[in-house]
């Protein structure tokens, strides 16, 4: 064990974790909207739109995140007409490629989490609303959505933690996130054990924070 190396690389790795957190928050926020949108399509539509939403979730949950990020980053970069389109301004940047891949991936899982949460809402809640003469729209926004969000908190907390670890794949498209910087330090010091232990501890620390936050939210909104 090289204690000097551990002390020296800790600040660098901690700084790099800002990139990791930026990637995580950007993709979780975008992914939440995507997930909510597709979950609603799944519940409200049994026709073509519902099928499309199902197909989206099926594809993104059925393929590895690494493959998705490679297709978006290296794959699209090889296609002439994408390179000449306006889209290239975004796809040219590794950061946005990573965010798009992560957001689409977590969006698929989020849509499943929310869909099952909607479907487990007891009919009694909705009937109670109806008997009070509340409109369907208000029932949906004021009763179904809040309950669904509460129901999905534990599963969604898991999803955030999975995505936190998923962001390490950003290093494969040249981003200097926590894993990227860890690999960089290893490439100059040739000591993987020390550096990966610190990187792993930082990930663990963030996992703890997420876990704790979700747990307290669950308590706050329990019924």
């Amino acid at each position, binding site marked *: 064990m090289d204690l000097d190396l551990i002390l020296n690389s800790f600040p660098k790795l901690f700084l790099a974790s800002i990139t990791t957190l930026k990637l995580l928050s950007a993709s979780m926020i975008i992914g939440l909207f995507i997930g909510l949108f597709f979950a609603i399509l799944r519940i409200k539509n049994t026709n073509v739109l519902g099928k499309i939403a199902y197909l989206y979730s099926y594809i993104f949950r059925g393929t590895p995140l690494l493959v998705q990020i490679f297709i978006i980053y290296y794959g699209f970069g090889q296609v002439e007409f994408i390179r000449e389109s306006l889209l290239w301004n975004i796809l040219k940047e590794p950061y946005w490629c990573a965010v798009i891949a992560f957001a689409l991936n977590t969006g698929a899982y989020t849509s499943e989490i929310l869909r099952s949460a909607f479907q487990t809402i007891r009919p009694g809640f909705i009937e109670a609303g109806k008997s009070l003469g509340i409109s369907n729209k208000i029932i949906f926004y004021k009763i179904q959505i809040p309950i669904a969000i509460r129901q999905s908190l534990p599963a969604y907390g898991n999803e955030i933690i999975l995505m936190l670890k998923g962001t390490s794949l950003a290093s494969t498209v040249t981003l200097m996130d926590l894993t990227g910087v860890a690999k960089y330090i290893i490439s100059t010091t040739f*000591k993987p054990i020390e550096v990966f232990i610190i990187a792993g501890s930082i990930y663990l620390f963030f996992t703890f924070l997420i876990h704790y936050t979700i747990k307290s939210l669950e308590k706050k909104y329990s019924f």
Partner: protein
Amino acid sequence: MNIFKKFGLGLLISLFLTISANADKIRIGTEGAYPPWNSKDASGKLIGFEVELAWALCRYIGQQCEIVEQDWDGMIPALQMRKFDAIMAGMSITDERKKVITFSQGYADEVASLAVMKGSDLEGMDTPEGINLSLGGGNVNKALKTITGALAGKTVCTQTGTIHQNFLESGDVGKVNVRTYKTQDDVNLDLASGRCDVALAAAVAFTDYADKSGKPVVLVGPTFSGGAFGNGVGVGLRQAAQMGETSTMGKRDADLLRKFNKAIDQARKDGVISRLAIKHFGFDASM
């Protein structure tokens, strides 16, 4: 009960046989992703200059060999953890690496070069054909200054943990916006896609890619050698001191260094290295 005993004994014997069979086998690690130095054919078989040279050196040494594939970024740690005994992966002999491993004498030399896509504004850079950073002098300084100006504000791509990355970060060409990749293949892809304005690697890595892909990749600026680019490519080996010089493993490591040096001498004398270099590089890169 008896069955278990027999089974356990059988397991022990087979384990022992495997270990003793492997004891004299030299395992050589290579990347398999840096053509023409080392790469893989369509069926996944390792090919290239160093793969053929490795087999030739093993014949001179007179021991059985096994070639093991290893990602570049874990090459040196894997050697130290005894996943294999020697590195032959286009690894240049540098002072930085010598702090943690040792090298045989060099067997081939590569020059590095910048590359761009045809039509880049970096084409036609006014520099000498080649510069040797170890020699220094006015010519070298002037060339470095020209390159510093040309690279300013550009995204320069290179493989992680290479002499090329070290050079770009050495300050010799100012503060460069470096982007690093796991493999040279990835660098080539992003150079072609336009995410990289310019890339730095062994000159042959670019010409090989241009030949095979048909992409208009062109070399620009001088070829680089010396300084951060090290002193040729050699076989990377464990330092005998790592396990204690008098220990069995330490002795074996020291012995391996002697064997490789001797084998390289013989291969050079017999013209084997030159022949393989001409076959794979198109010119005699042996040293």
